[in-house]
């Protein structure tokens, strides 16, 4: 979105978000993550470091909360005061939720973060001035700021290590915000290939790095517009709808809803593009 275009066509652009009369077409990238399959093993997170040129910040900066893990595994314990966590832990892979009404987008003073037509919340590094408003306004805290110049002064990739850097992804310098992009470099390649062949991207043409690594295949990624895609089918089966702030499951919490799809902080109405499936625990033991 060039800025002039953004400004001239603002209302129209916003209108083109998925509302009843103008749905996304032909792409709306989305995810679903099955927490019952997720084992919390961290493979996705390391895969993300490898794919997206994430800097390793070291112990001291990690202590300052400056870790740059776009994909992180959150681990929660039950809070009912039992002595031992005898139903295990709750693991949750957390990354940018690619909100449809992203709180970060509206506060960016320079339009560096904005929505792509296919529903990804994009981050344009060279436009970013480092105000960090977006991060402050993100309810998921999945935006990461480059406090240091990791490629140069911090020398995060000393000789030979730098040869591993992915040329499809910018190595970010000091003072810019960054976050999960749904592996937009992979999406772009898939879209270009599809365009060359005069078709749209088929389900399975593109995998995100985390999805590809995940040993339990807990992560699905695909096009929510494509009715053949796994993600579409999963969202549909769980009756989760992109532009609703309360889902069928929530309405029926007391009874047996038999659904387990939900989105985090739905009540804040960011309309995230990531659906989680609740972790299941056996009732018989």
């Amino acid at each position, binding site marked *: 979105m060039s800025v002039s275009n953004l400004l001239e066509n603002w209302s129209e652009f916003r209108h083109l978000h998925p509302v009843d009369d103008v749905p996304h077409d032909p792409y709306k990238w989305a995810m679903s993550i099955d927490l019952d399959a997720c084992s919390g093993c961290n*493979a996705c997170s390391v895969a993300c470091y490898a794919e997206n040129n994430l800097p390793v910040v070291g112990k001291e900066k*990690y202590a300052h909360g400056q870790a740059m*893990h776009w994909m992180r595994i959150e681990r929660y314990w039950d809070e009912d005061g039992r002595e*031992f966590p005898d139903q295990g832990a*709750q693991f949750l892979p957390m990354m940018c939720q690619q909100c449809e009404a992203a709180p970060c987008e509206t506060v960016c003073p320079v339009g560096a973060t904005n929505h792509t037509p296919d529903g990804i919340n994009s981050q344009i590094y060279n436009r970013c001035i480092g105000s960090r408003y977006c991060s402050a306004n993100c309810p998921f805290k999945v935006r990461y700021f480059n406090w240091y110049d990791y490629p140069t002064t911090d020398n995060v990739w000393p000789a030979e290590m*730098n040869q591993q850097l992915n040329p499809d992804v910018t190595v970010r310098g000091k003072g810019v915000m960054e976050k999960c992009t749904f592996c937009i470099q992979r999406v772009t390649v898939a879209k270009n290939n599809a365009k060359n062949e005069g078709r749209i991207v088929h389900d399975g043409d593109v995998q995100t790095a985390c999805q590809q690594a995940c040993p339990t295949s807990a992560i699905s990624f695909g096009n929510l517009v494509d009715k053949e895609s796994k993600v579409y089918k999963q969202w549909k089966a769980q009756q989760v709808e992109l532009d609703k702030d309360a889902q069928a499951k929530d309405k029926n919490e007391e009874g047996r809803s*038999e659904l387990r799809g939900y989105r985090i902080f739905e009540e804040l109405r960011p309309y995230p593009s990531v659906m989680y499936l609740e972790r*299941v625990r*056996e009732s018989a033991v």
Partner: protein
Amino acid sequence: MMNSGFDRRDFLKVLGWGGAAVALSGCGNGSVEDGKETVVSYVETNDYMIPSISVYFNSTCAQCDAGCSITGRLREGRVLKLEGNPDSTINRGKTCGLGQAGVQHHYNPDRVREPLLRTGSSGEAITWEKAYALIAEKTKGVSGEEIAFLSGGVSGHLKVLLGNYLDSFGCKNHFAYEAIAPAVLRAANKKSYGVEMPRFNIGKAKVVLSFGADFLGSWVSPVHFSQQYAQFRKGVDGQRGVLIQVESKMTLTGANADRWLVVRPGTEGILALGLINALGAHGVALSGDVAAAVKGYDKARVSKDTGVSAEQIDKIVALLKARTPSLVLAGSAAEGYAHGSQNAAAINLLNQVLGNVGKTVEVAEVVPFPQMAPTTGNTAALRKLNDGLAAGKYKVLFSYAANPVFTAPGAMKFKDNMAKAGFKVVFAHYLDETALQADLVLPLDSALEDWNTQVPEYLATCAQINIQQPLMEKLHANTRGMGDILLALLKQRRAEEYKGFEDYYAYLRGAMLKNKAALGGGKLDDDTFWNETLSKGIVKLEGRVGGLSGRASAAGLTLPAPAAVDAQYPLQLIPSVNASLRDGRHTNQPWLQESPDPLTTIVWDSWVEIHPRKAAELGIVEGDIVEVSGKNGSIKAQAYLFPGIHPDAVSIPLGRGHEAMGRYAKGYGVNPFQILDPVFDKETGELALHETRVKISKAGSRVIVVKDEGVVGGMQMGKKIAVRVSSDKVKLSEEV
């Protein structure tokens, strides 16, 4: 896959470094400099080499011994990323975090680049000719008994060459050592099932009862088991699998259990026998010897010994009876005691009583080339080597893919004993603790530069030989492949026999082509077969399948009563195995250092896990530096209050605490291997990792624990972030 029908050698020849600059343009910070940046073109190319288009080559992951097949993504001659190879039945296109970090082993800035000869306290770079001459000189006239070769687990053609080299001296001293290996279990399985490693079909089981087997984290073949686990959770016929984990310190697998049962350390076998007893009481037929063996293990006693409530035992028994087939696994937590073999035997017996043998415990296929079959490592081998070294038996010691100076218990004094060997040659990627003790360090190619074949110990659904091949040109001119080194050494001994092989590649190709028919390529010409083999990265075989033997008698199976509380050292030390750091050989891969431990979310440092109740008793809070001391030394680390541990145990993760091995490993954390008590399993002689008893005291200072979880320590504070639902509230069979 773009890699069919080309000759790998040509590929490597033309590759050069051309194009690297084109690609590296992605790495700068972005000013436009027309006419300043150089774009180096290729001199010669193949058709598939197009700038900005990725090329994929198949190989085998060498980060652990599970044998996952990988696909390396290459751009302009550099390997950028490793993905799983979907054609492998082991990992089916998936990788773990450890596997992902394989590129950091390859590109590590702290790799050894030249052969180094010790002169006094420092190393001097020498040529390979000189290094080989030195080895020839030092082994001249030395008898086979005076040579020792220490290695990790080896298989494939490398094992053949290694065997032949040692044979040339008449040497029988090959010590295969793995610091963390299911060696006790192998022996127990051999007794119970007739094979060391049967196939555990988690995907087919309706209940998995695991005694400390961390199969989602680090046990045997975690990526394979993780996929089976996903299938198990979805259920075979719509009924979701139930996982019960029994252990004293929560592992990653325990954290995913439906029911996590904390037991007093070392009483896993007692619980297993108690369950058999209870099953008998609930009408499961027990044969005479089994009934006799479990007679004394009534619910009340078992509950008292283990700390598991009688009510819980009833629930498990009911579940095991109702849902079949089930699967019982014995893992490292059960093995790690002086009575580890008995623990494992008792747990295996439970499988037999439940009728799982032949259903979820299946016979594994065997690669029909016994000379290539894996020689698995264990700790008994190290003990034997250590005794020999202490007695000054060895004039020449070789060490490959092992770091015993770091991983042997301090009480074994391995470092001192190693010094007694006359001439110590260490084949190394990095200057680790063991390499620093060497007289001669020979730098190895990384796993992404080297040729090899590998036969995994744990085969999934078919027998397979894995091919490891260079994914890119060597980074450093003076490193060598292990196969090439062994071949060069063999040429010193048996020049006639090996003169036909220019290098290890030629040897490997020749050996594979000789067995072309047996490898399934009988109808293909040599080049086609070879190229196809390299392209796939896997040779799938008709494996030999035997049967599982009838069970061993339960007669004589007894378990010691739980150890009495030691007043001086009241706590059990559980050295825990983290899925990415394992025994510490990968600690210098920064992604793994910065990848939080899944359970504590701590990074870049070691910690001592203490149950909050115990911590309150001792007045310890998070971040207190505590001293953990036992009979064999003490270490200091930060305390972390962790609910998933028995209050009478503390746990410190293995893998950190390096004093060498480069910038990313050295000086981070502590090494609990150093304070382990030298207690060994009575039957197998394996080091009992969990038998160390310690006391714990505050050492005065306090630090802020560097971890990923928030200040409230993993609480959701009423926000529905990660939500859990009871299984009777969902219908998984109707999901996509």
